[in-house]
């Protein structure tokens, strides 16, 4: 099933103004009607909680109301409609997309992807021995920069039964498990992308079901650091990071948000194909990151020389 990845996340929130300002400061482009886009057209949609166009919320009150997947073509949409139609209602919405509910109660949308092909360089580093270097006389970093999120990367759900979730996405939608944390849950990618994960589950008690975090891909680690520093300077509060994950190798920096979930920046995620064998590790601090740093205000060792 040629699902490419999440095209949009739809939220119903208490404070539309705060959430809209937040995602704008995060670097998404306001497009009107609550839509905020990354460079490739993937988006976050921010609507008031009681907006009549929103699907019903989960009983837990999580602000995520719908995860919309982009698929390769109409044929894939038809295949999804046929597959999910076997045991549940599949709505055909006016915009041509499909809507159905997964085995845990998360509302899903499917549409022919809106993703625009991007042609942008990744961060290039200079290193002795490497043939891929920045062109000579090209500087690597600017003092001020506002890097833009490129593409909606992944969403993480708290779920009451990760095995049930994994089975649904694998058996019904063709997702592949790339790695897993024992008793916590799998990292999964749909068949239409090489990204290490677009979806990750964390096992929790049922009253927690909902979104844990979501993130967009940045152009490289420097962009994660600079975008995160901009967030700190605007008064937003870090939750975890910056650092680099082990599973997926992605650089990360998480911030708390008025959505009642964390929002992350990530960069340089591993790519996998069907030759990859999923690894499994126990969860915990040691296995979830290669290293972790904490933000500190700019400082330099300067001042008068020490007295005699």
């Amino acid at each position, binding site marked *: 099933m040629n699902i490419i990845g999440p095209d949009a996340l739809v939220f119903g929130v208490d404070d539309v103004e705060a959430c809209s300002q937040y995602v704008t400061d995060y670097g998404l482009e306001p497009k009107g009607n609550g839509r905020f886009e990354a460079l490739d057209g993937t988006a976050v949609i921010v609507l008031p909680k009681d907006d009549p166009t929103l699907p019903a919320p989960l009983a837990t*009150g999580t602000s995520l109301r719908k995860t919309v997947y982009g698929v390769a073509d109409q044929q894939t949409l038809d295949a999804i409609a046929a597959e999910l139609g076997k045991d549940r209602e599949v709505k055909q919405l006016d915009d041509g997309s499909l809507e159905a509910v997964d085995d845990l109660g998360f509302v899903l949308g499917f549409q022919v992807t809106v993703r625009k092909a991007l042609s942008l360089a990744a961060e290039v580093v200079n290193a002795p021995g490497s043939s891929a270097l920045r062109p000579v006389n090209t500087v690597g970093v600017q003092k001020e920069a506002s890097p833009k999120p490129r593409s909606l990367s992944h969403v993480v759900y708290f779920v009451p039964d990760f095995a049930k979730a994994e089975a649904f996405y694998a058996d019904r939608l063709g997702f592949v498990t790339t790695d897993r944390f024992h008793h916590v849950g799998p990292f999964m990618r749909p068949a239409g992308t090489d990204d290490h994960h677009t979806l990750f589950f964390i096992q*929790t008690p049922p009253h*927690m079901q*909902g979104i844990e975090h979501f993130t967009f891909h940045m152009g490289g680690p420097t962009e994660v650091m600079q975008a995160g520093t901009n967030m700190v300077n605007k008064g937003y*509060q870090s*939750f975890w990071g910056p650092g680099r994950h082990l599973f997926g190798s992605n650089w990360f920096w998480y*911030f708390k948000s008025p959505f009642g979930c964390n929002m992350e920046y990530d960069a340089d995620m591993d790519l996998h194909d069907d030759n990859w064998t999923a690894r499994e590790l126990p969860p915990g601090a040691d296995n979830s990151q290669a290293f972790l740093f904490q933000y500190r205000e700019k400082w330099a060792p300067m001042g008068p020389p020490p007295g005699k």
Partner: protein
Amino acid sequence: MRQTVPLCHLDDLADGSAKGFDPQHQGSDTVFIVRSGDKVFAYEDKCPHYRGQTSLPWRKDAYLDPFGETIVCAAHGAHFEIATGLCTAGPCLGESLTRVPLQIRDDGCVLAELNDNNVGGESP
């Protein structure tokens, strides 16, 4: 060891608002006060979800929902009662924020009784 530290004046706290403080100069807020009518409540700025390793707000002083009715941890949306600190929804359901005892002097000065370990949230 316990110490009594002045945090602010009652007039600095608008009704229905919250404010964070860093009385022990940790570099980020470790205690917050919520004012509700003529009552004030103070708690350590540590969410019980990850055993107190993280702080609550998404922006400085953003401890309350937009209606000023409940304390919220922005990381995963836990809700806590203003008057008791009890988590009524979200990951740490049934657990509570840690109360910080306050003294209010006649001149309106608000003091907190702190343990030396009232340190703030770090990343997990």
